[in-house]
């Protein structure tokens, strides 16, 4: 199936029913009558999207959807390809499947994600893979690749997920993280890894280390070579040979928490 945005919503619109499992199981006329929320008003999907059949088995969604929230929410399987920008809460609570966005996204991407993959070729907003306010754990699995830049609080409270950012990150990357891996290639903001319990943050940028981290050694983690090979094969992120074969300074922290996290900073 293919959905194409024909009318730009005036206010943020919640369309959590746009998932491969729901759309691909219905006929076109049924899809057009799916209810979505335009602000606080219930409207039909056809009021904003045109629906057509496509040869692809994946769900294709097209248009400037920066006002559309919750695309792919609760996804458990299937594939969704999005051409254009999307709004907040993409892939919220998804547990499986694959979302590819050829564009940029809003804030709060993939909150409460437990599995599946999200690949964004553009930029991301604030609080990507972030725990909701008051929650001690955020994403608990899956893979998020953002080829562009992201803003603050990437991976806040994350547990057992893998996040890759090809560009710059804002402040508080990996703050309070429980476990998992964050790999970044661009300039970093301040206080990376603050309050982390376990997990790994790997930075190409020479970041300012918090005083609650202690220096361990210089080494080359073997698993990183596998992750970089995967990224070279599947993304457009530029990875030079020196970085792939380079050494990393390892810092342990955060001492205000369990002190079992690791910061790996590329040694130029």
């Amino acid at each position, binding site marked *: 199936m293919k959905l194409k945005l024909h009318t730009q919503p005036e206010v943020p619109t919640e369309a959590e029913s746009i998932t491969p499992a729901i759309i691909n199981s219905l006929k076109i006329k049924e899809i057009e009558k799916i209810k979505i929320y335009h602000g606080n008003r219930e409207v039909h999907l056809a009021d904003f999207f045109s629906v057509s059949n496509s040869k692809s088995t994946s769900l294709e969604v097209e248009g400037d959807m920066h006002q559309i929230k919750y695309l792919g929410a609760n996804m458990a399987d299937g594939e969704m390809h999005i051409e254009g920008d999307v709004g907040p809460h993409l892939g919220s609570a998804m547990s499986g499947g694959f979302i590819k966005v050829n564009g940029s996204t809003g804030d709060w991407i993939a909150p409460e994600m437990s599995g599946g993959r999200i690949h964004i070729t553009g930029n991301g907003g604030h609080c990507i893979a972030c725990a909701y306010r008051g929650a001690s754990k955020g994403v608990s699995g899956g893979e998020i690749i953002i080829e562009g830049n992201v803003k603050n609080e990437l991976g806040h409270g994350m547990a057992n997920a893998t996040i890759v950012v090809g560009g710059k990150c804002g402040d508080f990357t990996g703050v309070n993280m429980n476990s998992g891996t964050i790999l970044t290639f661009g300039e970093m903001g301040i206080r990376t890894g603050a309050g982390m319990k376990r997990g790994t943050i790997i930075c190409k940028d020479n970041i300012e280390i918090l005083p609650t*981290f202690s*220096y361990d050694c210089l080494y080359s983690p073997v698993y990183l070579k596998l992750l970089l090979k995967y990224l070279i094969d599947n993304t457009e992120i530029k990875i030079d040979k020196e970085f792939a074969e380079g050494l990393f300074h390892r810092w*342990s922290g955060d*001492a205000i928490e369990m002190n079992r996290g690791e910061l790996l900073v590329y040694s130029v």
Partner: protein
Amino acid sequence: MKRVENVIMPFPKGVVRSGSKVGSKYKALVASTNHIYCPTIKGVVKDSAVPENVNACYEIVVDGADEKAVAEAMSVGMQAAAKDGVTQITAGNFGGKLGKYKFFLKDLVK
């Protein structure tokens, strides 16, 4: 060391990728990484034995049929390992947990 008779180095290629110790905090695990010789947690282990400029510790386990064979293997092993980049060579029998035999390195290099 491979050429010395009556000894084996039981780990792959003869080299253990970290120092090991007898026992673990987990009951089912009879041996585990020797945390005081682990460079990657040097910053958080209070009694770490890893010097400041050291980034790797390897261990060679020698199993031998008799004391003489083990001593000879350790002697030639030290001669082979003493190259640029290696800052220290040490050995231990973990407070007797690995048996009654003791091999003093200073005697083996004479």
